[in-house]
């Protein structure tokens, strides 16, 4: 889904039309305020945003969406002479910008890239959420064991530290592997290569 925000009706309409002929879903908004009133659907999407609009401008909308935790990629459309503004927007995390007048195929290419980017982001976020849920299903003692396994400590040492029998540690390890859906400790490490997974 591409959200097109432009105060000029013809611009809005033609962009939506073009996106639809390219096989993409498009939704038009006449102002930044209208975007904020909308509840976005949970699907791959990006925002095609005119940087200069009466009322709330493109930059202000970008800041407001960021504050709300909306991480949808934003492609800014700028007129001639607003390039410094667009660069500033990029620094604030915008995905890309297009200077008017632009080539239509260029627009489509960037929109597709933004959608891919969003899809990748969404699947990464989904994986992350899943992992969190799995971690939450572990008991307190299992998490203590997991932390030490990830620190590379052999079972014998862990048993000593936790003051339990070696057999018990082995038992916890097996349960951890089963709960997190991995077959080996190596796979376990791979799962936690992404930082901050344990926090």
């Amino acid at each position: 889904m591409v959200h097109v925000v432009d105060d000029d009706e013809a611009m809005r309409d033609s962009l939506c039309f073009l996106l639809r002929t390219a096989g993409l879903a498009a939704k038009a908004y006449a102002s930044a305020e209208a975007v904020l009133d909308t509840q976005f659907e949970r699907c791959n999407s990006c925002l095609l945003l005119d940087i200069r609009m009466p009322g709330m401008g493109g930059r202000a909308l970008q800041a407001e969406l960021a504050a709300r935790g909306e991480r949808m990629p934003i492609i800014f459309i700028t007129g001639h002479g607003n390039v410094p503004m667009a660069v500033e927007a990029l620094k604030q995390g915008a995905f890309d910008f297009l200077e008017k007048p632009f080539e239509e195929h260029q627009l489509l290419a960037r929109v597709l890239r933004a959608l891919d980017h969003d899809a990748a982001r969404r699947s990464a976020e989904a994986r992350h959420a899943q992992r969190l849920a799995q971690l939450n299903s572990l008991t307190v003692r299992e998490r203590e064991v997991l932390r030490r396994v990830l620190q590379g400590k052999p079972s014998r040492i862990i048993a000593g530290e936790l003051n339990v029998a070696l057999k018990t540690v082995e038992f916890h390890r097996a349960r951890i592997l089963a709960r997190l859906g991995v077959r080996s400790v190596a796979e376990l490490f791979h799962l936690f290569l992404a930082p901050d997974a344990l926090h």
Partner: protein
Amino acid sequence: MTRRRPVTILFLALALALTAAVTVTDAATGYEFRLGALYLVPIALATWTAGLAAGVAVSVVAALTWVLSFRGMHLYSEQWFFYWEAVLNIGIFLIFAVLLARLRDALDSSDARFVMAMQSLDAAVYATDARDGRILFANRCFLESFPDAAIGRDANPLHGRFTADRGLQEGDDGSEVIDHVSQRWYLRGARDVRWVDGTQARLHILTDVTDARHARVLQRQHEETLHRTSRAVALAEMASSLGHELNQPLGAIGSYLEACDRLLSSPTAELAQLREVIAKCRAQASRSGMILRRMREFVAGREPVRRETDLVGTVASVLRLVHFEARAIGISIETDLDAACRPAPFDRVLLEQALVNLLRNAMEALKNAAPERRRVCVRARSLANAEVQLSVEDGGTGLAPEVAGRLFVSFVTTKPGGTGLGLSICRSIIEAHGGRIWHEPLADGGCAFRFTLPGPAR
């Protein structure tokens, strides 16, 4: 003013001789024929030339010789009556001498004040003898500014050094003149005065106005730059807002067409949908047209207001406008205006604008020219068909062929910072008057811009 001593002594001796002469004559003519008042002549001479002391001395001598010559000759019944008369005489002589000395002092100090005032002036002041032009007096500033002139010499060679400002007659009074030797500008004033010694003299005052003139030129240049900059800024703003406005419909048309292209290449293209999109494109195209028309109405110059306008007067006022600029870069502007050009219905303001643009271009072309080629000529001729032809010719190196072809195209400029609008504005103005404008290379390598204007209505 100090006087030389031998002269003083000479006058003193003359006074004493006169006293003796009066005494002898008075004695010879007898007591009844009184000549005593004549003593006032030598007393005056001595007091005026040698001061109060000399005057008193001559008074005493005169009174004594009078007493000596008439002591036995008087007609009074009592001797002391005669002495009383002598006392009265010497009293009168002394009072006369004192008054005269005072008068002398007053005149001297007034002279001294005058000289001091002249010396302390920042202006060069000198006085010349009205008959032979000798310099009678010159102040410090004058001697510093014109060291080759000297008091007592003829001042005429000095006058040859000055040239009056263009447009003004080289008169004496109130004109600004340039000194060729020092290249400085002076405001010249003069008036007739009676000099200290009574001769008829002319007092000249030359005030150095070089810095003031320089400041004036800078001020004008500054105003001109400001004006040009604000014009360039306004133009840039207009172009930018026009661009922004046009981007919308053009961008929309582009997107619609791209979409059409995609529709056409898909097997399920619907004719109705294509028609709809094409109609939208058309609407956006006409929207672009509206934007352009609105912009044009907004910036359009006014229609020419035609009034009977004196062409020669118009040229003169334009020359006044560019006069300072021209002189600042050492360009002389000549005119060759046909007196047969009669007033015709022009818009004076627009015509001036066109002429100023052409003159500025001409001067621009001379920026790097040799000094002897730095001249611009404005010609006006009355043509056989009653049209008037005006030309601005410069002594530059002419136009490059690649420039010549695109001269009147807007936004094409050879000058850094130029708008590329000057000549295209000229052409609009001339064509609005029903004339035409073109350029010609000159035989000496320069370039002429000529335009015609319809003549007076018959």
